[in-house]
């Protein structure tokens, strides 16, 4: 192989490096699976948001708001577990990301802060409603931040699957 001009680094195998790659793939497969499952509570939280604000000043009925809070909490918890597997997956290359994975990573800068901010703003809005107030101040951004987070999360899933050529 030396005759061909290949360096030892190119020709010598490493079981240790293979094990690292195997571990990375395993963790990213779990990340992918959890990420897809997380779509369910995220979508459900978005749908249930329609029933969360008090209707016609009726601040007493909290059922639909409680359902929305529970679904939102589940979405954030699932998102945290999904992120854990991506963060903990071993890094095996220092080369810059190319292709869809690059956009998947860029979108983290939108949905990750969004997943932190959305429940904080939601809790503020929840407290304001519970104390008989209209949602005001920064808490009124809860819906907008949540929508941006959900859209960027969906875009991150599409980005990592891109380009899609459906052919059966």
């Amino acid at each position, binding site marked *: 192989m030396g005759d061909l001009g*290949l360096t030892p680094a190119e020709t010598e*195998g490493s079981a240790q490096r293979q094990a690292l790659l195997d571990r990375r793939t395993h963790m*990213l497969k779990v990340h992918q699976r959890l990420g897809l499952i997380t779509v369910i509570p995220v979508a459900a939280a978005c749908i249930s948001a329609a029933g969360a604000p008090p209707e016609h000043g009726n601040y007493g009925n909290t059922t639909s708001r409680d359902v929305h809070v529970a679904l939102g909490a589940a979405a954030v918890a699932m998102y945290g577990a999904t992120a854990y597997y991506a963060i903990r997956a071993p890094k095996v290359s220092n080369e810059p990301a*190319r*292709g869809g*994975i690059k956009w998947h990573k860029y979108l983290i800068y939108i949905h990750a802060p969004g997943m932190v901010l959305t429940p904080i703003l939601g809790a503020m809005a929840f407290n304001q409603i519970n104390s008989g107030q209209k949602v005001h101040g920064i808490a009124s951004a809860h819906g907008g931040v949540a929508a941006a987070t959900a859209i960027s999360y969906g875009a991150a899933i599409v980005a*990592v699957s891109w*380009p899609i050529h459906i*052919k059966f």
Partner: protein
Amino acid sequence: MKRLPLLAILLLTLPVASVHAQSPDQAWNLDQSTLTYHMSHPMHEVDGTSRAARGKGVCHAGQCDFLVAAPVKSFDSGDSNRDLHMLQVTRGAQFPLIQVRFRLPQGSLASPTLDCDLEVEFAGNTAHYAHVQFHQTIEGNAHHIVGIVPATLTDFKIDPPSFLTIPIKNDIPVRVDLTWHPS
């Protein structure tokens, strides 16, 4: 005393004859190469290309032996995550090279179609492909060869990776485009 010069001549000519037997009649170098694998999935069609293959050919007594080798990690599909996953499923860190060996009669090297029996070492396994046809065009010293190696995942005991629980197709044909020069 008459035997001594004879013995000396024999001893002197023997190494020369041996060197003649080992030196090749003709040698070939791979100048340019493009290897492209194709992967199919109901949602994706992917091509991964390597231009990093190296190769040599040596001819002896009318037979030419060729070797082409390419690092598995040199294949670029346009997505670094997919390339790393490909490297993992093909056990590319443990077996970093794809090696292809084939033998051709020296007399056939100028023919427009080359019929090759390939021995391919990849992912820690060896597969044989009989009568793979390559088309050749010759311009001056450059022998330009194109063809497709009908490789499959099962040939190399590679577990098919899946996306949304659907595995990729077993066929991973490799398009070969090589330019050889006699040295």
